[in-house]
C-alpha cells in the first residue's frame, strides 16, 4: 500500500542520513555576541588550513540547540557551549564529550532592585519575594549557588521563569525584587535599576565560577582524533596570540557582531586558560572544573535524567596533551 511504501521511504531516508560522512568537512557551532580570540583564526581561515578540510561555522542561540544539532549529526564540534546545556545533555546519556574549556567568565549576576534594601548581609529577606530566573541555564546555577552560599531557602522564594530581556523589564517595574540573567544588553539594563547581590570577589570566595566548554560528538572524536587535536591547537595558538597582541580586536568585534567597545568590555572579564593550566588546575582531581561539573550535574538532575555518579567518563582531556 502507498502508506506503507512511504513509511519505508521515510525510514530509509532516516537510516541513510545517520551514515554520516564526517571528514569531508567539519561543522562547528558558536555563539554570536560572545567574543573569543579564536574568531581571528576563524576569519583568517587558519582552521581550514590546519585541518585541511573546509570548516563551516554555524551560530546558535542556545547551548541546548547545539546539543540537538550535534545529536542530529549536523554539528561535530561546539565551541563555547555552556556548561548547563552540556550537563543536561550528558545526564540524558547523549553521546557527546567535553574536551576543553573554551572560556572562563564571572558567574552570572543576580541584581537586587534598588530600594529593596537587600544585600548579601540580609539576603534571607528574599524569602517570600519574587525573583526572575531563566530556569535551567547557567544563571539558574549561579542563583542556586548564591542562595546556598548566603543560606537562603530557595523553596521560600517565588521563582519566576523569565528570559533576561523580560527579567530586566520586570526588575525595572518592581514586579520582581531580584533578577538573574546573562547577556551584556539585559544585564546593563538591570544594573541601571539595581546592584548585584554578590560582587566578583564574593563570588570567587564562594567558589561560584562559570565556564563554557568545547564539546564534540563521540563519533567525530573517535574517527578524527587528529582533527580534534588540531582544532584545539589552533584555538590555543589564537588565545596566545591575542594575549600578546590585541590589535586584532576589531576583527573579533566584527565577527561577533559587537562594537569594538563592547567587545573590549566583554573580553576584559573573560579568561582563557591555557591547555597546561587546564590540565594542572582545572581537570586534575579536585580541580576547579572537576568540582564545578559535579555540582552543576547535581543542580540540573531530574528524576528522568539523574546526575551521573562520575562525570570523568564524559571528559576527555587527552586532546589537549
Amino acid at each position, binding site marked *: 500500500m502507498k502508506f506503507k511504501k512511504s513509511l519505508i521511504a521515510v525510514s530509509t531516508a532516516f537510516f541513510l542520513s545517520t551514515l554520516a560522512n564526517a*571528514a*569531508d568537512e567539519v561543522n562547528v557551532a558558536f555563539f554570536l555576541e560572545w567574543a573569543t580570540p579564536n574568531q581571528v583564526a576563524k576569519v583568517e581561515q587558519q582552521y581550514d*588550513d590546519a585541518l*585541511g578540510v573546509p570548516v563551516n561555522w554555524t551560530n546558535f542561540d542556545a547551548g541546548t540547540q547545539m546539543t*540537538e544539532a550535534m545529536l542530529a549529526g549536523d554539528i561535530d564540534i561546539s565551541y563555547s557551549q555552556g556548561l548547563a546545556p552540556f550537563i543536561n545533555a550528558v545526564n540524558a546519556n547523549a553521546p557527546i564529550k567535553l574536551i576543553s574549556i573554551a572560556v572562563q567568565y564571572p558567574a552570572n549576576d543576580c541584581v537586587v532592585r534598588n530600594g529593596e534594601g537587600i544585600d548579601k548581609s540580609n539576603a534571607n529577606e528574599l524569602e517570600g519575594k519574587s525573583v526572575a530566573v531563566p530556569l535551567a541555564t547557567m544563571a539558574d546555577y549561579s542563583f542556586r549557588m548564591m542562595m546556598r552560599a548566603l543560606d537562603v531557602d530557595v523553596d521560600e522564594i517565588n*521563582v519566576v521563569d523569565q528570559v533576561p530581556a*523580560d527579567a530586566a523589564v520586570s526588575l*525595572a517595574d518592581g514586579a520582581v525584587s531580584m533578577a538573574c540573567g546573562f547577556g551584556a544588553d539585559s544585564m546593563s539594563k538591570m544594573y541601571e535599576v539595581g546592584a548585584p547581590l554578590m560582587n566578583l570577589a564574593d563570588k570567587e570566595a564562594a567558589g561560584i565560577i562559570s565556564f563554557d566548554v568545547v564539546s564534540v560528538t563521540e563519533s567525530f572524536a573517535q574517527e578524527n582524533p587528529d582533527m580534534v587535536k588540531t582544532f584545539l591547537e589552533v584555538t590555543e595558538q589564537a588565545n596566545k596570540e591575542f594575549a600578546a597582541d590585541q590589535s586584532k580586536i576589531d576583527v573579533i568585534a566584527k565577527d561577533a557582531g559587537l562594537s569594538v567597545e563592547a567587545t573590549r568590555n566583554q573580553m576584559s572579564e573573560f579568561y582563557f586558560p591555557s591547555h597546561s593550566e587546564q590540565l594542572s588546575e582545572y581537570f586534575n582531581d579536585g580541580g576547579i572544573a572537576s568540582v564545578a561539573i559535579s555540582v552543576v550535574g547535581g543542580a540540573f538532575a*531530574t*528524576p528522568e535524567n539523574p546526575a551521573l555518579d562520575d562525570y570523568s567518563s564524559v571528559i576527555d582531556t587527552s586532546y589537549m596533551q
Partner: protein
Amino acid sequence: MFVAILYIVLVIVLVWSIVHGRKVIRTERTDAVFGNPIRTQGGYHWVACGVSSLMLVWFTFSWDAGRAFFPNAANELCQVAKLNRALNPVRSAFPLDNRHLLGTRILKRDLHQIELLSEQLGEMGLAETDREKISALISDLRQTLVLQASTEYMAPGIMGRFQDVAARIKQLARDIQSEDFPGPADETRLAEALAQPGWGESSTEIPVLPKTERGRIFDAAAEIMTGITADYSEIRNDGPDLTGRIEDIRQSIEELEAIAVQQEHKDILSDIEKISKRIDDFRVFPTQVTQGIEASLILLEQAMQDRQGSLRFIDAWALPGGNILAGNNACSEQGSGRWLPKPSDTLATFIWMADPGQGYKGFPLFWYKMKPVSEMVDFIVPDWIADLIPGEYGHHDEQGDIDYGFKDSIYNFATGDFDSFSVPVPTGHIWDSILRVLAGLFLGILLGVPLGLFMGLSRFAKGYFDPLVELYRPVPPLAWAPLILTIFGIQDDGKIFLLFMVAFAIMVISARTGATGTQLSKIHAAHSLGASNRQIIQQVILPNSLPEILTGIRISIGVCWGTLVAAEMLAGTTGIGFVENVARKQSDYEIIWMTIIVMGVLGLLFDLIMRFVIDRTIPWRGKG
C-alpha cells in the same frame, strides 16, 4: 504486553476502518451529490482510521512497538554498538565510510599547507640568503612528509605489527562466526546482567551488560577489539631515518630563529615549526602495508552481519528512523527513538506528574486545594471600606495590650483576616492555563462582538476602529511581550491580556463579517413590519451573524491555546506552557510531548464543545 496487544488492535482497527469505509463509499456513491455537506456527516470509521494510523506511526517510530515485541533487541544492539565503537578508530582510517585513506587525507592536507608556506615565502621581502635557507627547510619538510609513503624509509617492524593487527582482526571475524565463541558464560556476570532493569525501566534506558547469548558474542568481541584498536593506534611510522630528518629540521629552525630579526621572518619559522609538529605524528604509511587490515575489516564486517542475523531486520523494521549508539557509560537511543518518546513512557510521565504530591516544580498538574472563604472575601471587599468607618485603629498601651475596636474588626474582615470554613477549589498547571484561556476568550467575546457588530453597522465605527484593529491584528503576540510586561507586570493579567488581544481581533472581524453579511431584504422586511432599530439588531442582524460569530469563537479557542506558550513565557510560574518552556531547555522530550498532547486534547475538547453549541444554536446553518 499491553502495548503489544494495543498495537495489534490498532492494526486491526486500521484495516477494518479502511475496508468498511470503502464498502460504505461504494453504496453511497449513487445517492448523494458531490458537494452536499450531508456527505461529511457520520463516518466515525474514518475517525477510527485517522486516530489508529496516527497512533501506529507514533508507536512504530518511537520504538514502543519494537520494545513490546522484541524487549531484548536494544540490549543486543547495544552490544553490537559497543563492537562498532571499539572498531571505529581503526575503521575510520580506511576508505570504507570515507572516500580516502587516512594517510591520503593527511598527506593532502600537509602538502597543501607546505604549498601555502612556499607561496607565503615568495611574497615576503627577505634577504636572498635567508630566503634560500627557509626554502631549503620547506623542501626538507616536504621530503620528510613524502618519504613516509615510501616502503624504503619505513620504520623497522611496522610491517609485522600491521600484519599482526590484521591477523587478530581476521581471527576475531572467525571467532564471531564460530559456534563456541565466547565460551561458557561467567555465572556471576550473567546473573548481574539479568538483574539489570529492562529496556526503558530505569533512567539508564538501555541495559548495558549482555543479557542474551547473541549479545554476549558481541560484548566479548568488543572487548577483544578494544585491545586491537589500542595496539593499532600506537603504530607510528617513526623510523630512525624520518625522526632524524625531523630533528634536523627542528635544529635548523632554532638556528634560524636565533638570527632572525624581522617579524615576518620569525612568523614563517614558527609556521614551519607548527607543520613539523603535525608531520611528526607519523600517521602516513605506505599504502600496501595497511591493505591487509582493510581486507580483514571487510571480513569482520561480513562476520558481524552474518552473526546478527534476524537482529538486523529487527533494527530496520521495529526500530526505524534511528539507531542505538554506545556512549561513554551507557547505550542511548538516537534518531526518532530519542526525540519521539514512547507513548507508554509519556503516559507514565503524565501519571507520575499527575500525582498531586509530585507535580512539576512543586505544583500539581491538576488537583484541588481547600481555600478559606475569607480569602475570597479579601478579594471581593476593598480594604478602604474600613477607612470609611469613623474612629481610629487600635494601638498598644503600656502593658503591651492592644485594644481592638470596631474599625479593626471591619479591617480584619475586609483583609480576610478571620476564621472561616474552607471550600475546595481547583488548582494546578492545567487549571491555571484553562482559566487564562477562558478569561482571555471571555473578554475577547464580551468586547469584540459588540464592537464588530457596531463596525458592521456604523460608518463612524468602521472608519474609526478599522485602522486600530487591522494594524495590531497581524503582529505576532510574542512581539507584545515586553510592552505587556511593563504595563501589567508578572501576574496573570498580562497573560490574560495577551490572549484577549488574540481573541478580540478574531471576534471583531467575525462579528463584523456576520453583520455586513445580513441579507438586505430581511432587514427591509423587518423594517416595513414596524421593527425598531433595537429589534432589527436583536431579531435580524444578531441571529444572522451568529454562524460567523460562533465560527470566530471556534477559531479563537484554537489560537488562544496556540498563544498560551508565548503568554506563559512572559513570566512563568505556573501553567502548562511554563512546563513546556522549562522542559524544552532541558531537552526533556517526554514532558515536552506530554504538554503538547495535553494542550492538543484540551483544544480538541473545547472545540468539540463548540461544535455541540453550534449544532444546538444555529441548526439552520447551511440550509438557508
